[in-house]
């Protein structure tokens, strides 16, 4: 008992000021940082895909299906860190059985189910249905069988039926845009509605989350498109890349302005919590907020993207800058999530002290689990691209097959 208290006391020595006794442990750790990061990528990738579909941004055609599949891969993984962090994961079904209508979090199950079942899966299904029917006829053995199941028995690929697919697909995309906003805006609301926490409590939270989601999604697809094209030894579509970079710049400008607005508003209002929050920013969050999020994750990529997009640069150089900027944006957005989730717990609600967060390496909520959850979507995406190759459109190799059928 004494040694237990002694060890606990030694762990407390890095705390400054006064924190409530029950605040010595952080309750939302690394896994909860990963969760909004992943859903942000989902929402961002989907919104990018819908730009092509709904607003007819033709340049983006090469990444349309890639965006959809990436969104799906990340959406599959998004709830896993949440599940792993629960004290009783076996009780998670209660969210569907007895959802508390006044709880923001209770809506998670429904928002997630809606987005997965009604939006993403349906859109992908309608989009790939024709190809799947063809593949199910062409491929032999196991693969043919899988495609037959995936068609769900709807094997009619007549002209009118395909027209129906297209119409429904478009309708779903239109529903999908507000749904994607909902998916991630809602994650922002989970934090923004906690009045007990002055770092979180802000009406701008859902909107900031949304725009940072779009930023991270575009950057992800940009990087993924470059990598996948490289490994397939194909020519990168430069108009597409330029368009992605442009969109990324616009989204980043909006995102950065919103965050700046939030920051200035807080500083100017200078409420009770301002002392402890500024203390936290200048000490505990200095690296992750000032350096990683603002300088490396926002300013540097924004400036270099503008320079690469609108400056006179050789194409090769331009691609390299795009790629590095996209990676920096990912670092920046991950830091944003970190600063929201971990930052919101580093100061005491007594507003009198700061606590510390030490990342575990092993353990259920440790670094290794986190890395696993961050890499898993890419593995899933790899399988998905094998199953539902997204490059078909640009290679036009569907044409002969089409001719055969009709």
């Amino acid at each position, binding site marked *: *008992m004494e040694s*237990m*208290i002694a060890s*606990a*006391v030694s762990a*407390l020595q890095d705390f400054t000021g*006064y*924190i*409530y*006794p*029950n*605040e*010595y*442990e952080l*309750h*939302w750790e690394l896994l909860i940082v990963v969760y909004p990061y992943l859903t942000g990528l989902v929402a961002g990738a989907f919104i990018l895909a819908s730009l092509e579909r709904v607003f007819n941004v033709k340049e983006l055609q090469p990444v349309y299906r890639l965006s959809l599949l990436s969104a799906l891969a990340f959406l599959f993984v998004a709830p896993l860190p*949440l599940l792993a*962090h*629960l*004290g*009783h*994961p076996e*009780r*998670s079904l*209660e*969210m569907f*059985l*007895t*959802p*508390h209508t*006044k*709880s*923001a*979090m*209770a809506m*998670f199950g429904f928002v997630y189910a809606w987005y997965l079942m009604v939006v993403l899966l349906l859109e992908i299904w309608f989009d790939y249905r024709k190809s799947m029917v063809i593949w199910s006829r062409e491929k032999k053995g196991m693969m043919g069988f899988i495609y037959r199941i995936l068609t769900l028995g709807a094997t009619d690929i007549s002209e009118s039926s395909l027209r129906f697919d297209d119409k429904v697909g478009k309708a779903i995309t239109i529903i999908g845009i507000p749904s994607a906003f909902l998916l991630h805006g809602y994650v922002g609301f*989970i934090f923004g509605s*906690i*009045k*007990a*926490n002055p770092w979180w409590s802000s009406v701008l939270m859902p909107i900031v989350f949304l725009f940072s989601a779009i930023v991270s999604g575009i950057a992800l697809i940009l990087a993924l498109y470059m990598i996948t094209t490289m490994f397939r030894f194909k020519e990168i579509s430069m108009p597409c890349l330029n368009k992605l970079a442009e969109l990324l710049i616009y989204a980043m400008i909006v995102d950065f302005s919103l965050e700046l607005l939030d920051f200035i508003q807080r500083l100017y209002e200078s409420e009770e919590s301002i002392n402890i929050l500024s203390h936290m920013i200048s000490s505990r969050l200095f690296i992750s907020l000032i350096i990683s999020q603002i300088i490396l994750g926002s300013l540097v990529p924004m400036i270099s993207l503008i320079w690469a997009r609108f400056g006179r640069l050789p194409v090769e150089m331009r691609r390299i800058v795009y790629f590095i900027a996209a990676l920096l944006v990912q670092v920046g957005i991950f830091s944003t999530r970190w600063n929201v989730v971990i930052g*919101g*717990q580093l100061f*005491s*609600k*007594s*507003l*009198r002290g700061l606590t510390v967060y030490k990342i575990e390496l092993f353990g259920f909520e440790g670094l290794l689990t986190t890395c696993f959850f961050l890499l898993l979507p890419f593995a899933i995406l790899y399988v998905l691209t094998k199953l539902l190759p997204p490059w078909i459109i640009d290679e036009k190799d569907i044409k002969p097959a089409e001719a055969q059928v009709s």
Partner: protein
Amino acid sequence: MKENKSEKPNRREFLLSCSKAIPLTGALFFPLSAARLLLAQESGDYDPTVHNYGMGIDIHKCIGCGRCAAACKTENNVPLEPHYFRTWVERYVLPSEGEALVDSPNGGIDGFPEMNEDIDTLRSFFVPKLCNHCTNAPCVQVCPVGATFITRDGVVLVDEKYCVGCRYCIQACPYGARFLHPEKKVADKCTFCYHRLAKGLLPACVEVCPTQARVFGEVGQQSSPLRRFLRFNDVIVLKSSLNTLPKVYYAGADGEVR
């Protein structure tokens, strides 16, 4: 125990029968039985809807002995590590200039060592803290599955068989009154000793408070120690700007208390 009873009446039963016979002893017991009526009834037909429990805390009376925090840990099997508390005592030292200094070493259970800072103290006092059993409880609002709730007698409880351990309620509590139970992996907090109320007893912290700095009773009934407390004191609730409508009232608490 039961076989034992049938063989020989034990001392307690003997005295009980005496107390009924001797009017003098009966008179001694009278105010106690009145107090008993206020809280709950031995007969068992307890009607929760007529109750709405609350607590008053008189800062001027608190001597910072930490007996409440110690008794709470015993009564409720709260983990003994110094960062799990259902109730704890804070020491405030207000210097002539600058920020208040606050500490709560092991929740005050082992007493308060002398402050090593050499400061010009203006005033100093102790503040016991616990779950405020808010009428507009943010923890209840955010619980996704309905595992934390306000009972019909106005106590905020956690359903440890239903809690998923998402810790949203811990984030939502402005008072730091909740923690994740390290073994049960569910949210845990003060229950106003709900199991004691049901048996007609006072919460353990109130029972052991040597100076009656803690007053427990009904918020809504005229004849209640809490109502008297509210009548005679200028009370505040903590973080009233958050509109949580707490039912733990502080008399003599400084504006620095939060």
